[in-house]
Protein backbone atom coordinates (compact mmCIF):
# COMPACT_ATOMS: atom_id res chain seq x y z
CA UNK A 1 0.00 0.00 0.00
CA UNK A 2 2.72 2.48 1.03
CA UNK A 3 4.76 1.43 -1.96
CA UNK A 4 1.78 2.04 -4.28
CA UNK A 5 1.31 5.53 -2.78
CA UNK A 6 5.03 6.26 -3.19
CA UNK A 7 4.89 5.08 -6.82
CA UNK A 8 1.88 7.28 -7.43
CA UNK A 9 3.65 10.28 -5.90
CA UNK A 10 6.77 9.58 -7.95
CA UNK A 11 4.61 9.92 -11.06
CA UNK A 12 3.67 13.42 -9.96
CA UNK A 13 7.28 14.52 -9.53
CA UNK A 14 8.63 12.70 -12.60
CA UNK A 15 8.56 15.92 -14.62
CA UNK A 16 10.87 17.60 -12.11
CA UNK A 17 13.15 14.58 -11.90
CA UNK A 18 13.60 14.46 -15.67
CA UNK A 19 14.18 18.19 -16.03
CA UNK A 20 17.30 18.75 -18.13
CA UNK A 21 19.47 21.80 -17.27
CA UNK A 22 18.58 23.31 -20.63
CA UNK A 23 14.81 23.22 -20.03
CA UNK A 24 14.59 26.08 -17.48
CA UNK A 25 16.82 28.21 -19.71
CA UNK A 26 14.45 27.57 -22.60
CA UNK A 27 11.49 28.54 -20.37
CA UNK A 28 13.23 31.88 -19.89
CA UNK A 29 13.91 32.23 -23.64
CA UNK A 30 10.27 31.38 -24.39
CA UNK A 31 9.29 33.95 -21.74
CA UNK A 32 11.47 36.60 -23.39
CA UNK A 33 9.81 35.92 -26.77
CA UNK A 34 6.39 36.22 -25.12
CA UNK A 35 7.49 39.45 -23.44
CA UNK A 36 8.73 40.91 -26.74
CA UNK A 37 5.49 39.94 -28.46
CA UNK A 38 3.00 40.90 -25.73
CA UNK A 39 4.64 43.80 -23.96
CA UNK A 40 6.81 45.31 -26.69
CA UNK A 41 4.51 44.49 -29.61
CA UNK A 42 7.34 43.04 -31.76
CA UNK A 43 5.72 40.68 -34.30
CA UNK A 44 3.25 39.41 -31.65
CA UNK A 45 1.37 37.23 -34.13
CA UNK A 46 4.44 35.05 -34.42
CA UNK A 47 6.47 35.61 -31.29
CA UNK A 48 3.57 34.65 -28.99
CA UNK A 49 2.95 31.20 -30.52
CA UNK A 50 6.72 30.66 -30.98
CA UNK A 51 7.41 31.56 -27.34
CA UNK A 52 4.62 29.34 -26.08
CA UNK A 53 5.65 26.48 -28.37
CA UNK A 54 9.16 26.82 -26.97
CA UNK A 55 7.85 26.43 -23.41
CA UNK A 56 5.61 23.49 -24.36
CA UNK A 57 8.35 21.48 -26.01
CA UNK A 58 10.71 21.91 -23.06
CA UNK A 59 8.40 20.35 -20.49
CA UNK A 60 9.88 16.91 -19.89
CA UNK A 61 8.01 13.63 -20.55
CA UNK A 62 5.11 15.30 -22.38
CA UNK A 63 6.88 14.32 -25.62
CA UNK A 64 4.90 16.79 -27.72
CA UNK A 65 7.43 16.50 -30.54
CA UNK A 66 7.54 12.70 -30.21
CA UNK A 67 6.08 10.40 -32.84
CA UNK A 68 2.52 10.78 -31.52
CA UNK A 69 2.82 14.32 -30.18
CA UNK A 70 0.40 16.95 -31.49
CA UNK A 71 3.21 19.43 -32.21
CA UNK A 72 4.95 16.79 -34.32
CA UNK A 73 1.72 16.24 -36.27
CA UNK A 74 1.39 19.98 -37.01
CA UNK A 75 5.10 20.29 -37.83
CA UNK A 76 5.12 17.32 -40.20
CA UNK A 77 1.91 18.41 -41.89
CA UNK A 78 2.80 22.03 -42.50
CA UNK A 79 6.50 22.74 -42.10
CA UNK A 80 8.10 19.59 -43.47
CA UNK A 81 5.76 19.73 -46.46
CA UNK A 82 6.53 23.48 -46.86
CA UNK A 83 2.81 24.12 -46.96
CA UNK A 84 2.60 26.74 -44.17
CA UNK A 85 5.09 29.26 -45.62
CA UNK A 86 3.43 28.94 -49.03
CA UNK A 87 -0.05 29.54 -47.62
CA UNK A 88 1.31 32.57 -45.76
CA UNK A 89 2.68 33.83 -49.06
CA UNK A 90 -0.79 33.76 -50.62
CA UNK A 91 -1.91 35.99 -47.75
CA UNK A 92 1.08 38.31 -48.16
CA UNK A 93 0.36 38.62 -51.89
CA UNK A 94 -3.28 39.39 -51.12
CA UNK A 95 -2.23 42.12 -48.67
CA UNK A 96 0.51 43.77 -50.76
CA UNK A 97 -0.09 46.72 -53.04
CA UNK A 98 2.53 46.76 -55.77
CA UNK A 99 1.33 50.10 -57.20
CA UNK A 100 4.30 52.17 -55.87
CA UNK A 101 6.65 49.64 -57.46
CA UNK A 102 4.83 49.74 -60.79
CA UNK A 103 4.94 53.54 -60.70
CA UNK A 104 8.70 53.51 -60.43
CA UNK A 105 10.05 50.16 -61.70
CA UNK A 106 13.68 51.21 -61.17
CA UNK A 107 13.16 50.88 -57.42
CA UNK A 108 13.07 47.15 -58.14
CA UNK A 109 16.86 47.36 -58.35
CA UNK A 110 16.96 48.48 -54.71
CA UNK A 111 15.00 45.34 -53.91
CA UNK A 112 17.83 43.38 -55.52
CA UNK A 113 20.59 45.23 -53.67
CA UNK A 114 18.72 44.70 -50.40
CA UNK A 115 19.21 40.95 -50.80
CA UNK A 116 22.99 40.97 -51.11
CA UNK A 117 23.26 40.29 -47.39
CA UNK A 118 21.97 36.77 -48.10
CA UNK A 119 24.92 35.90 -50.30
CA UNK A 120 27.55 37.72 -48.25
CA UNK A 121 26.38 36.01 -45.05
CA UNK A 122 26.32 32.65 -46.80
CA UNK A 123 29.97 33.17 -47.74
CA UNK A 124 30.80 34.15 -44.17
CA UNK A 125 28.99 31.09 -42.77
CA UNK A 126 31.07 28.89 -45.08
CA UNK A 127 34.24 30.58 -43.80
CA UNK A 128 33.11 29.81 -40.25
CA UNK A 129 32.88 26.14 -41.14
CA UNK A 130 29.15 25.61 -41.68
CA UNK A 131 28.34 22.82 -44.15
CA UNK A 132 27.16 24.16 -47.51
CA UNK A 133 23.41 23.66 -47.13
CA UNK A 134 23.51 24.88 -43.53
CA UNK A 135 25.27 28.03 -44.78
CA UNK A 136 22.51 28.52 -47.37
CA UNK A 137 19.91 28.37 -44.58
CA UNK A 138 21.86 30.81 -42.40
CA UNK A 139 22.33 33.21 -45.32
CA UNK A 140 18.62 33.19 -46.10
CA UNK A 141 17.95 35.04 -42.83
CA UNK A 142 19.17 38.01 -44.87
CA UNK A 143 16.02 37.75 -46.97
CA UNK A 144 14.46 39.42 -43.92
CA UNK A 145 11.43 37.35 -44.75
CA UNK A 146 10.21 34.69 -42.30
CA UNK A 147 8.29 32.42 -44.69
CA UNK A 148 11.16 32.39 -47.22
CA UNK A 149 13.65 31.53 -44.47
CA UNK A 150 11.39 28.73 -43.22
CA UNK A 151 10.76 27.42 -46.75
CA UNK A 152 14.46 27.12 -47.53
CA UNK A 153 15.60 25.91 -44.10
CA UNK A 154 12.92 23.23 -43.77
CA UNK A 155 14.19 21.77 -47.06
CA UNK A 156 17.92 21.90 -46.49
CA UNK A 157 18.68 22.23 -42.79
CA UNK A 158 15.60 21.34 -40.72
CA UNK A 159 17.83 20.98 -37.63
CA UNK A 160 18.50 24.75 -37.83
CA UNK A 161 14.86 25.72 -38.28
CA UNK A 162 14.37 26.99 -34.71
CA UNK A 163 17.43 29.25 -34.69
CA UNK A 164 16.95 30.50 -38.26
CA UNK A 165 13.27 31.36 -37.89
CA UNK A 166 13.68 32.97 -34.48
CA UNK A 167 16.51 35.07 -35.92
CA UNK A 168 14.51 35.97 -39.04
CA UNK A 169 11.40 37.07 -37.16
CA UNK A 170 13.19 38.78 -34.26
CA UNK A 171 15.45 40.85 -36.48
CA UNK A 172 12.58 41.67 -38.82
CA UNK A 173 10.77 43.20 -35.89
CA UNK A 174 13.92 45.07 -34.86
CA UNK A 175 14.32 46.75 -38.27
CA UNK A 176 13.31 50.18 -36.83
CA UNK A 177 16.24 49.89 -34.41
CA UNK A 178 18.78 48.23 -36.72
CA UNK A 179 18.46 50.37 -39.85
CA UNK A 180 18.63 54.07 -38.81
CA UNK A 181 22.23 54.07 -37.46
CA UNK A 182 23.46 52.36 -40.64
CA UNK A 183 21.52 54.80 -42.82
CA UNK A 184 23.05 57.77 -40.98
CA UNK A 185 26.53 56.29 -41.08
CA UNK A 186 26.53 55.79 -44.85
CA UNK A 187 24.94 59.05 -45.99
CA UNK A 188 25.85 62.71 -45.69
CA UNK A 189 23.44 65.24 -44.19
CA UNK A 190 23.05 66.79 -47.66
CA UNK A 191 22.02 63.44 -49.15
CA UNK A 192 19.50 62.76 -46.38
CA UNK A 193 17.91 66.16 -46.96
CA UNK A 194 17.23 65.56 -50.67
CA UNK A 195 13.54 66.18 -51.32
CA UNK A 196 11.75 63.86 -53.69
CA UNK A 197 8.45 64.79 -55.21
CA UNK A 198 5.61 62.42 -56.00
CA UNK A 199 4.67 64.37 -59.12
CA UNK A 200 6.46 62.12 -61.60
CA UNK A 201 4.62 59.04 -60.33
CA UNK A 202 1.99 58.04 -62.88
CA UNK A 203 -1.23 56.29 -61.91
CA UNK A 204 -1.37 52.59 -62.80
CA UNK A 205 -4.14 51.06 -64.92
CA UNK A 206 -6.15 48.13 -63.61
CA UNK A 207 -5.06 46.02 -66.59
CA UNK A 208 -1.40 46.52 -65.62
CA UNK A 209 -2.12 45.61 -62.01
CA UNK A 210 -3.85 42.40 -63.10
CA UNK A 211 -1.19 41.47 -65.65
CA UNK A 212 1.69 42.17 -63.24
CA UNK A 213 1.32 39.01 -61.10
CA UNK A 214 0.71 36.81 -64.14
CA UNK A 215 3.73 38.12 -66.05
CA UNK A 216 5.96 38.04 -62.95
CA UNK A 217 5.01 34.41 -62.29
CA UNK A 218 5.84 33.35 -65.83
CA UNK A 219 9.08 35.39 -66.03
CA UNK A 220 10.24 34.49 -62.50
CA UNK A 221 9.30 30.85 -62.93
CA UNK A 222 11.13 30.57 -66.24
CA UNK A 223 14.31 32.12 -64.82
CA UNK A 224 14.27 30.35 -61.45
CA UNK A 225 11.89 27.38 -61.62
CA UNK A 226 13.02 26.04 -58.23
CA UNK A 227 11.50 29.08 -56.58
CA UNK A 228 8.20 28.93 -58.43
CA UNK A 229 6.21 27.84 -55.33
CA UNK A 230 7.36 31.05 -53.60
CA UNK A 231 6.77 33.38 -56.56
CA UNK A 232 3.60 31.62 -57.66
CA UNK A 233 1.84 31.79 -54.29
CA UNK A 234 2.65 35.45 -53.60
CA UNK A 235 1.52 36.39 -57.11
CA UNK A 236 -1.64 34.28 -56.87
CA UNK A 237 -2.62 36.21 -53.75
CA UNK A 238 -1.91 39.49 -55.52
CA UNK A 239 -3.86 38.49 -58.63
CA UNK A 240 -6.90 37.63 -56.49
CA UNK A 241 -6.65 41.04 -54.80
CA UNK A 242 -6.16 43.10 -57.95
CA UNK A 243 -8.73 41.28 -60.08
CA UNK A 244 -11.46 41.99 -57.54
CA UNK A 245 -13.28 38.94 -58.93
CA UNK A 246 -12.77 36.68 -55.93
CA UNK A 247 -13.31 38.95 -52.96
CA UNK A 248 -14.23 36.02 -50.70
CA UNK A 249 -11.00 34.17 -51.48
CA UNK A 250 -8.98 37.37 -51.09
CA UNK A 251 -10.57 38.07 -47.72
CA UNK A 252 -10.01 34.49 -46.58
CA UNK A 253 -6.35 34.62 -47.68
CA UNK A 254 -5.79 37.96 -45.89
CA UNK A 255 -7.58 36.90 -42.73
CA UNK A 256 -8.70 33.37 -41.86
CA UNK A 257 -6.07 31.40 -43.79
CA UNK A 258 -3.21 33.76 -42.87
CA UNK A 259 -4.26 33.80 -39.21
CA UNK A 260 -4.69 30.04 -38.81
CA UNK A 261 -1.47 29.25 -40.64
CA UNK A 262 0.45 31.90 -38.68
CA UNK A 263 -0.69 30.28 -35.43
CA UNK A 264 0.22 26.77 -36.56
CA UNK A 265 3.51 27.92 -38.09
CA UNK A 266 4.47 29.82 -34.96
CA UNK A 267 3.79 26.95 -32.61
CA UNK A 268 5.62 24.53 -34.92
CA UNK A 269 8.70 26.75 -34.95
CA UNK A 270 8.57 27.05 -31.18
CA UNK A 271 8.41 23.27 -31.06
CA UNK A 272 11.80 23.02 -32.75
CA UNK A 273 13.38 24.88 -29.82
CA UNK A 274 14.12 21.86 -27.64
CA UNK A 275 16.83 23.03 -25.23
CA UNK A 276 19.03 19.98 -25.86
CA UNK A 277 19.22 20.90 -29.56
CA UNK A 278 18.88 24.68 -29.32
CA UNK A 279 21.37 25.62 -26.61
CA UNK A 280 24.54 25.22 -28.60
CA UNK A 281 27.31 27.61 -29.56
CA UNK A 282 26.12 27.19 -33.13
CA UNK A 283 22.78 28.85 -32.29
CA UNK A 284 24.55 31.94 -31.01
CA UNK A 285 26.65 32.07 -34.18
CA UNK A 286 23.49 31.78 -36.31
CA UNK A 287 21.84 34.61 -34.38
CA UNK A 288 24.95 36.77 -34.85
CA UNK A 289 25.18 35.95 -38.56
CA UNK A 290 21.47 36.69 -38.98
CA UNK A 291 21.98 40.12 -37.42
CA UNK A 292 24.91 40.73 -39.71
CA UNK A 293 22.87 39.63 -42.74
CA UNK A 294 20.22 42.26 -42.10
CA UNK A 295 22.88 44.93 -41.48
CA UNK A 296 24.57 43.98 -44.76
CA UNK A 297 21.22 44.16 -46.60
CA UNK A 298 20.80 47.71 -45.35
CA UNK A 299 24.39 48.64 -46.21
CA UNK A 300 24.05 47.29 -49.77
CA UNK A 301 20.64 48.93 -50.21
CA UNK A 302 21.87 52.36 -49.09
CA UNK A 303 25.05 52.07 -51.18
CA UNK A 304 22.94 51.21 -54.22
CA UNK A 305 20.77 54.21 -53.34
CA UNK A 306 23.92 56.35 -53.42
CA UNK A 307 24.71 54.96 -56.86
CA UNK A 308 21.21 55.89 -58.04
CA UNK A 309 21.77 59.32 -56.52
CA UNK A 310 24.93 59.67 -58.56
CA UNK A 311 23.23 58.52 -61.75
CA UNK A 312 20.30 60.87 -61.24
CA UNK A 313 22.54 63.87 -60.77
CA UNK A 314 21.83 64.15 -57.06
CA UNK A 315 18.03 63.99 -57.30
CA UNK A 316 17.60 60.60 -55.62
CA UNK A 317 17.59 60.34 -51.82
CA UNK A 318 19.83 57.35 -50.96
CA UNK A 319 17.93 56.68 -47.71
CA UNK A 320 15.29 55.00 -49.90
CA UNK A 321 17.82 52.23 -50.59
CA UNK A 322 17.37 50.96 -47.03
CA UNK A 323 13.77 50.05 -47.88
CA UNK A 324 14.90 47.46 -50.41
CA UNK A 325 14.42 44.68 -47.88
CA UNK A 326 11.41 42.48 -47.35
CA UNK A 327 10.18 43.86 -44.00
CA UNK A 328 7.04 45.41 -45.50
CA UNK A 329 5.92 48.14 -44.83
CA UNK A 330 8.05 48.60 -41.72
CA UNK A 331 11.19 49.47 -43.60
CA UNK A 332 9.44 52.07 -45.79
CA UNK A 333 8.13 53.74 -42.63
CA UNK A 334 11.65 53.81 -41.17
CA UNK A 335 12.87 55.61 -44.32
CA UNK A 336 9.99 58.10 -44.18
CA UNK A 337 10.65 58.84 -40.50
CA UNK A 338 14.40 59.16 -41.01
CA UNK A 339 13.92 61.42 -44.06
CA UNK A 340 11.61 63.72 -42.13
CA UNK A 341 14.07 63.95 -39.29
CA UNK A 342 16.49 65.77 -41.62
CA UNK A 343 14.00 67.66 -43.75
CA UNK A 344 10.54 68.23 -42.32
CA UNK A 345 9.06 68.81 -45.78
CA UNK A 346 10.38 65.57 -47.18
CA UNK A 347 7.88 62.79 -48.00
CA UNK A 348 9.79 59.71 -49.08
CA UNK A 349 7.05 57.22 -48.22
CA UNK A 350 5.71 56.48 -51.72
CA UNK A 351 9.20 56.00 -53.14
CA UNK A 352 10.21 53.88 -50.15
CA UNK A 353 7.06 51.78 -50.50
CA UNK A 354 8.11 51.04 -54.09
CA UNK A 355 11.55 49.90 -52.94
CA UNK A 356 9.99 47.95 -50.09
CA UNK A 357 7.55 46.14 -52.41
CA UNK A 358 10.58 45.50 -54.64
CA UNK A 359 12.33 44.02 -51.60
CA UNK A 360 9.34 41.77 -50.98
CA UNK A 361 9.56 40.32 -54.49
CA UNK A 362 13.36 40.60 -54.41
CA UNK A 363 13.70 38.36 -51.36
CA UNK A 364 11.56 35.70 -52.98
CA UNK A 365 13.48 36.01 -56.25
CA UNK A 366 16.85 35.88 -54.46
CA UNK A 367 15.80 32.64 -52.73
CA UNK A 368 14.49 31.29 -56.05
CA UNK A 369 17.72 32.24 -57.83
CA UNK A 370 19.77 30.58 -55.10
CA UNK A 371 17.74 27.36 -55.24
CA UNK A 372 18.09 27.26 -59.00
CA UNK A 373 21.85 27.82 -58.76
CA UNK A 374 22.12 24.99 -56.23
CA UNK A 375 20.12 22.76 -58.55
CA UNK A 376 22.29 23.83 -61.47
CA UNK A 377 25.47 22.97 -59.53
CA UNK A 378 24.01 19.60 -58.56
CA UNK A 379 24.09 20.46 -54.83
CA UNK A 380 20.37 19.72 -54.41
Amino acid at each position, binding site marked *: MVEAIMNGLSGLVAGFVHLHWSNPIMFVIGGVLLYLGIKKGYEPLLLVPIGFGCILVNIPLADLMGKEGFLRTIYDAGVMTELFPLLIFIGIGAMTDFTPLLQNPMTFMLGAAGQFGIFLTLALALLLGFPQLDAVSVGIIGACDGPTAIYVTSQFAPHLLGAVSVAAYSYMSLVPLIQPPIMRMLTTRKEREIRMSNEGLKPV*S*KTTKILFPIVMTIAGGMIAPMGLPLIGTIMLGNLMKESGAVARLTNASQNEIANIVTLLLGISIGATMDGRMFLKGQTLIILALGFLAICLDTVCGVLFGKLMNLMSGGKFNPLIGAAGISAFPMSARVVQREGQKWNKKNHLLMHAMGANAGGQVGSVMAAAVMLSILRGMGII
Partner: protein
Amino acid sequence: MQQMDNFTFGVTVLIVGMGGTILTLWIMSLIMTLLMKVFPYKEEEQSK
Protein backbone atom coordinates in the same frame (compact mmCIF):
# COMPACT_ATOMS: atom_id res chain seq x y z
CA MET B 1 24.78 14.68 -54.47
CA GLN B 2 27.84 16.32 -56.02
CA GLN B 3 30.70 17.34 -53.72
CA MET B 4 32.24 20.76 -54.25
CA ASP B 5 34.84 22.51 -52.15
CA ASN B 6 33.58 25.35 -49.99
CA PHE B 7 35.63 28.04 -51.73
CA THR B 8 34.30 27.23 -55.20
CA PHE B 9 30.79 26.87 -53.82
CA GLY B 10 30.92 30.17 -51.92
CA VAL B 11 32.40 32.23 -54.76
CA THR B 12 29.98 30.72 -57.30
CA VAL B 13 26.89 31.36 -55.18
CA LEU B 14 28.13 34.86 -54.33
CA ILE B 15 28.76 35.91 -57.94
CA VAL B 16 25.95 34.04 -59.70
CA GLY B 17 23.51 34.67 -56.85
CA MET B 18 24.03 38.41 -56.64
CA GLY B 19 24.36 38.77 -60.39
CA GLY B 20 21.38 36.52 -61.05
CA THR B 21 19.16 38.37 -58.57
CA ILE B 22 20.01 41.78 -59.97
CA LEU B 23 19.64 40.58 -63.57
CA THR B 24 16.28 38.93 -62.84
CA LEU B 25 14.88 41.99 -61.11
CA TRP B 26 16.22 44.24 -63.88
CA ILE B 27 14.39 42.11 -66.45
CA MET B 28 11.28 42.33 -64.31
CA SER B 29 11.59 46.11 -64.07
CA LEU B 30 11.80 46.27 -67.88
CA ILE B 31 8.67 44.13 -68.16
CA MET B 32 6.89 46.44 -65.73
CA THR B 33 7.96 49.52 -67.69
CA LEU B 34 6.63 47.87 -70.83
CA LEU B 35 3.33 46.98 -69.14
CA MET B 36 2.93 50.59 -68.00
CA LYS B 37 3.53 51.81 -71.57
CA VAL B 38 1.25 49.28 -73.29
CA PHE B 39 -1.59 49.70 -70.81
CA PRO B 40 -1.50 53.33 -69.69
CA TYR B 41 -3.92 54.64 -67.10
CA LYS B 42 -7.21 55.90 -68.56
CA GLU B 43 -9.61 57.46 -66.11
CA GLU B 44 -12.78 56.29 -67.85
CA GLU B 45 -11.62 52.64 -67.86
CA GLN B 46 -10.98 52.61 -64.14
CA SER B 47 -14.52 53.63 -63.32
CA LYS B 48 -16.02 50.69 -65.30
